[in-house]
């Protein structure tokens, strides 16, 4: 029994490396997708949800205010992501000392 499609026995170093590369790439893509989904949900909640639920919005097109809110929300979400990443690195370095 072995790893399809590599057959029986253990994998060579090169095959292991390849498998790891694919795994890393797949995880990265999934991570980005997940982050995007979260951002979408939060920005809808923050900018649109209340008005839409109460019928206070302007129909099917986005109003100027809704548009501005969404642009601001997305920018701030990405900025938050960068800030959190920064702090993680700082803490990791501090913990290593």
């Amino acid at each position, binding site marked *: *029994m*072995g*790893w399809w499609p590599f057959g*029986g*026995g*253990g*994998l060579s170093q090169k095959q*292991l490396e390849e*498998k*790891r590369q694919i*795994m*890393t790439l797949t*995880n990265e893509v*999934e*991570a980005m997708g*997940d*982050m995007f989904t*979260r*951002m979408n949900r*939060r920005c809808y909640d*923050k*900018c649109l949800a209340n008005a839409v639920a109460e019928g206070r919005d302007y129909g099917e097109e986005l109003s100027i205010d809704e548009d*501005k*809110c969404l*642009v*601001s*929300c997305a*920018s*701030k*979400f990405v*900025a*938050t*992501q960068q*800030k*959190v990443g920064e*702090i*993680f690195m700082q*803490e990791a370095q501090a913990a290593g000392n």
Partner: protein
Amino acid sequence: MNAMLAGVSESERQRLMMMLEDMQIKEQVTMYNSLVERCFNNCVTSFRSKTLDDREEKCITRCTTKFIKASARAGQAFQAIGMQPGELPPHRRRG
């Protein structure tokens, strides 16, 4: 773990190690993404500009730092559950 794997073939061990590595990466990604979402939700309340203001930045910094320290401490306590009382390292406060 090596004791549990006695007699398991090399290819199966490799497959297991890869799976564990993958699980660990996925778990860290989920933790990171959840943290970003949570700190964003708690700290960012106005949407007039495209950049974080000073208050929001400080809030996010606190949110993240607290989470990292809390996570480490909870992890320590979790690992200490199997130990004798008194083995959990004491809480260290700064001021």
